[in-house]
């Protein structure tokens, strides 16, 4: 099996999708000759031509609205938003249109559009190249929200999304684009949407996380092991649909929960997880459910590592739940 970074794995998924299915098209700003600003679409235009790998004018509403039209008429578009921070000019197209086509047409029309976008901090990108807006999308009925944390998952989830029938917001942790290299299977394989991955098993506490926070949680879990605490790390992989069964199983076993995301705290996805646990696993809890999150401020440039949760903050939360 070839070793790939997440960037290479996503490129491989796109190439596989384009090869296997003539309905697949890739569109976005700079995705053609330039191969995307993160090089995720490198080589695709050369292989599949300008009609299937399209550079667009600078208008996200055009990219997403156009992708919707393509999907209505039978294509499978994969739209790239250069940074998720630039998705808002298309927010209306995503929330009012993409998410609702199937429902408002009583199932007559569907929009299997995949919206790929790098998200998250840690690359000195400042306010508009670092945000984590997953909660906006998770809050919108009709959208699936997928966030991989490993190269292999990135490929398998993207191919599963391509095989699916509904729109997917596919957020890529750009901080992990090139930091991890692992074996990734060749050809087509699907990582099912709606299943968590156990990044590390444990018995005493559960850390729920996704995307770029998964390695942070694993680091904290490793240092907790030195103190005799066995910490389970669940990588959610998909926020919608959520694998609530796996989440609740783990929480019922450990009785202690820390929820971790880099998005701001208020109304972040962690609030949904905490509510789920309060509703369905309250009697298993041995400590309050804690959240380690970004602060309720815009994303700073210089102080980004103050803003971003790190293993130290997760460890502090683990100490609290373990000693409660």
């Amino acid at each position, binding site marked *: 099996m070839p070793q790939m970074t997440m960037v290479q794995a996503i490129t491989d998924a796109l190439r596989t999708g384009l090869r296997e299915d003539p309905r697949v098209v890739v569109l976005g700003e700079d995705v053609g000759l330039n191969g995307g600003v993160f090089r995720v679409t490198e080589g695709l235009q050369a292989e599949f031509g300008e009609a299937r790998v399209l550079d667009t004018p600078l208008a996200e509403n055009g990219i997403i609205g156009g992708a919707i039209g393509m999907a209505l008429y039978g294509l499978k578009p994969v739209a790239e938003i250069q940074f998720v921070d630039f998705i808002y000019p298309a927010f209306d197209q995503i929330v009012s249109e993409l998410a609702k086509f199937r429902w408002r047409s009583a199932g007559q029309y569907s929009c299997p559009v995949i919206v790929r976008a790098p998200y998250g901090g840690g690359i000195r990108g*400042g306010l508009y190249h670092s945000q984590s807006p997953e909660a906006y999308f998770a809050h919108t009925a009709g959208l699936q929200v997928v966030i991989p944390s490993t190269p292999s998952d990135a490929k398998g989830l993207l191919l599963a999304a391509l095989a699916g029938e509904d729109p997917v917001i596919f957020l890529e942790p750009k901080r992990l684009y090139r930091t991890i290299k692992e074996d990734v299977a060749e050809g087509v394989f699907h990582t099912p949407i709606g299943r968590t991955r156990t990044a590390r098993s444990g018995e005493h506490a559960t850390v729920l996380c996704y995307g770029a926070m998964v390695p942070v949680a694993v680091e904290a879990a490793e240092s907790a092991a030195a103190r005799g605490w066995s910490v389970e790390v669940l990588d959610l992989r998909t926020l919608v649909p959520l694998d609530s069964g796996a989440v609740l199983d783990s929480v019922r076993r450990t009785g202690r929960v820390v929820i971790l995301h880099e998005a701001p705290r208020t109304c972040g996805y962690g609030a949904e997880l905490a509510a789920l646990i309060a509703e369905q696993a309250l009697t298993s809890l041995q400590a309050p459910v804690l959240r380690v999150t970004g602060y309720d401020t815009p994303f700073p440039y210089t102080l980004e590592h103050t803003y971003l949760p790190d293993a130290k903050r997760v460890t*502090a939360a683990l100490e609290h739940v373990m000693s409660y």
Partner: protein
Amino acid sequence: MSVDETLHQVLDVSGRAIAPVPDVPKEDLRRLHRHMVSMRLLDQRMLSLQRQGRIGFYGMATGQEATVTGSAYALRATDWVFHALRETGVCLWRGTTLEEFICQLIGNAGDVLIGRQMPMHFSDRRVNSVAWSSVIGTQLVHAMGAAYAAKLQQHDTVCMGYIGDGGTSSPDFHAALNFAQVWQVPAVFFCQNNQWAISVPLSAQTASSSIAIKAAAYGMRGVRVDGNDLLAVIQVTREAVERARAGGGPTFIESLTYRMGGHSSSDDPTRYRDAAQVQYWEERDPVRRFETWLRSEGLLTDADLEQWTAEVQDEISRAITSAESLPAPPIESMFSDVYAQMPAALADQMKYALALGKGTHVEGAFPL
């Protein structure tokens, strides 16, 4: 309103005057040139700082010095500027110091924006430069609205909205021009058409015969100017600004120029464009063109250039040294200005972040 798609020029490519020269005092002509020279030197020095890892990001305006400087010159200090990545030179012309600019690039405690924004996202209320986001196109509608406010309050302020050629595809570009013309606001929309939006060439951005012609769709006056011709830029912008000031409504200016470098320090333009095209524009260099004309008018000597270069290099060096001696902004700076008054929940978060920053234990219930 009509759109004139002919490219206005005062100097030809060789720096010879082919049309009447706008009325600009001699001392200003020299200052304008010095400013262009300093912009170019600044780009070189800052790019090298970036390569050394001393700043995180840089966006050059190399090749666009005349369009930046000439348009800035046509404004009054009281006018408002809604700009973006390529127009830092406008702020510098209006009084921003090199040190202030470099502090922003570093994002330190001396930065007017206290390290909140990525490098190059400079703005400063003292020079009426409005804080901008990276989201392309958004500032243009703000320029339109501010111009309406100025008109309503009977101020003689003109609002200048800058945009790139890529930005003319954004939804806000359309809204800005449409509203502005309907409301007859005192705004000027200035497009620096440097012919590239990262790797996307103008031909893939628009099928219009020019950028200027887009004004026709809104019933707006549109003009096209050789952006590498400082005198022509001054002439065309001045006319548009003074027309707006006098109640004559908005103008859309296309200033045709070329982005000589990469899109930014993160970009490698050799991946997507021909060296021959770069060479073609190298021969149309705006700084050299104006220099040739100044010399022919007896307004510039080798000694001037040598002196200016030495002065500017020294100013930049001193600004770097001084900016690099400043500390990072304090943790508190992340939490202020989210709201006028900090909500209690955010104050708790700040307390926690401060304790964590100092490595002290946070007592009581875990607040975050």
